[in-house]
């Protein structure tokens, strides 16, 4: 039983009546909810509130970081050696592929000049670390340690070495929240790399699954097909690998096939992610699959991703300029 003795509300001559407090504060809550949801008036407030919360994050992260530091500094020699040789190996492979990449880039620039498509080819990325804090157990959101001060902005695409991870949904001063492509409120426009069929991959609330609800029964999709971003949303650049088709079920009675895919990005294992910076996001759209894009047909090794940008395919049609709010499912575009 709760102790009686410390104090209690005044029975006679109470302070401000409870109901008034409830009414007033309730009104304030509803007001800021509407402001926050319907418009961007509270963005700066959020920025600073998030900054005020950073000590909490610092405290929560300390044990993990200390552990990393400890294991890092006491890692035994053999393991470091093995790791070193492995990395050298990877670097060599990446170098070889880079040689190819250079020639491809030359070719691409030439083709682009021919078609007068002036997409800026930046390829600049920013590395962010995923913080060890819990955001929401039922939503696929994670927090990263880069914020508005580092130039993070809302709807910024997030990648890892294997594919698209998600996008930034909320920015604080020193940290920001990203939504993963597997969140059930997230959808990303994709196309089948083999034949260019466009569709939308909707998160299923499961790290290992994306749904493609808008592919008709007749559409040519096979298990193992690579899905790359189509860039039609104006948020994600075109041509980055998203997922691989794992399941296709065609019931002739239905209009749509049941298609599932598995995200290529290591959504549940990543510690570090890449944020694409603004100049990378020039409108590059619609890479026809037949145009030959070897970079996107297989997951790239880690070393390559930061420089390789398969986003620069020659563009056939203008990107929709409107930045659709990502968490809304868009209608099928076929």
């Amino acid at each position, binding site marked *: 039983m709760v102790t009686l003795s*410390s104090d209690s509300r005044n029975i006679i001559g109470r302070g401000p009546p409870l109901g008034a407090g409830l009414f007033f504060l309730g009104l304030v809550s509803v007001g800021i909810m509407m402001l926050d949801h319907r418009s961007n008036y509270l963005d700066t407030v959020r920025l600073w509130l998030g900054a005020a919360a950073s000590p909490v994050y610092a405290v929560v992260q300390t044990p993990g970081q200390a552990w990393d530091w400890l294991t890092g500094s006491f890692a035994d020699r053999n393991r470091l050696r093995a790791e070193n040789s492995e990395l050298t190996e990877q670097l060599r492979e990446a170098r070889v592929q880079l040689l190819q990449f250079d020639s491809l880039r030359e070719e691409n620039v030439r083709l682009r000049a021919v078609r007068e498509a002036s997409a800026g080819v930046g390829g600049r990325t920013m590395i962010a670390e995923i913080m060890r804090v*819990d955001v929401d157990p039922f939503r696929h959101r994670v927090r990263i340690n880069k914020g508005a001060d580092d130039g993070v902005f809302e709807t910024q695409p997030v990648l890892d070495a294997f594919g698209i991870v998600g996008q930034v949904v909320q920015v604080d001063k020193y940290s920001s929240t990203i939504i993963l492509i597997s969140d059930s409120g997230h959808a990303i426009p994709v196309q089948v790399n083999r034949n260019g069929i466009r569709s939308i991959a909707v998160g299923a609330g499961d790290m290992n699954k994306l749904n493609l609800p808008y592919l008709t029964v007749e559409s040519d999709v096979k298990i193992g097909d690579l899905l790359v971003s189509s860039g039609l949303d104006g948020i994600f650049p075109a041509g980055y690998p998203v997922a691989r088709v794992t399941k296709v079920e065609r019931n002739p009675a239905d209009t749509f096939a049941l298609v599932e895919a598995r995200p290529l990005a290591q959504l549940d294992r990543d510690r570090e992610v890449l944020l694409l910076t603004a100049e990378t996001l020039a409108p590059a759209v619609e890479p026809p699959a037949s145009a030959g894009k070897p970079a996107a047909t297989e997951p790239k090794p880690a070393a390559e991703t930061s420089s390789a940008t398969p986003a620069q395919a020659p563009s056939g049609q203008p990107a929709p300029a409107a930045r659709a709010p990502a968490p809304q499912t868009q209608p099928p575009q076929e």
Partner: protein
Amino acid sequence: MSDGRISRVRVTFTVILAIIFAVLPLPEPINAARPDLLLLLVIYWSLSAPRIAGLLFAWFCGLAIDVLKGIILGQHALAFLVVAYFTHKFQLRIRIFPLSQQTLTVFAFLALYQFIVFWLDGIIGQPVTTWMRWLPVISGAILWPMLVAGLDTWNRRNR
């Protein structure tokens, strides 16, 4: 009221701990059932020190959760506020309830809280519909007797 200042320190201290607990990464199987420790503390302090822990206190606690985990500001703040309102309103009754009955009341409060959050999620258009979202209600109710025992002992020793 001689211990007003010390109580204030105690309230602040426990609230900071609860806020840290709210974002602490937990292993996957029990993560979904993470109890709303901060809300339990708001209920506890509203019962045992209502002059320190008023409605405004509860509202700011909710706002802290909004900043750390919420989708929009004000959502958890409103839910905290409503729970604190009912706690204050029935404070004199709830305090003399036997522990079992008190736990049931707290269970109802936690369910109310989750319902308000759930409802606002739905209004925003991003509902979480798995049944697992109600697990914190149960884990919170289980935690309540232990929390009361612990904090009461601490309060009595330090008075």
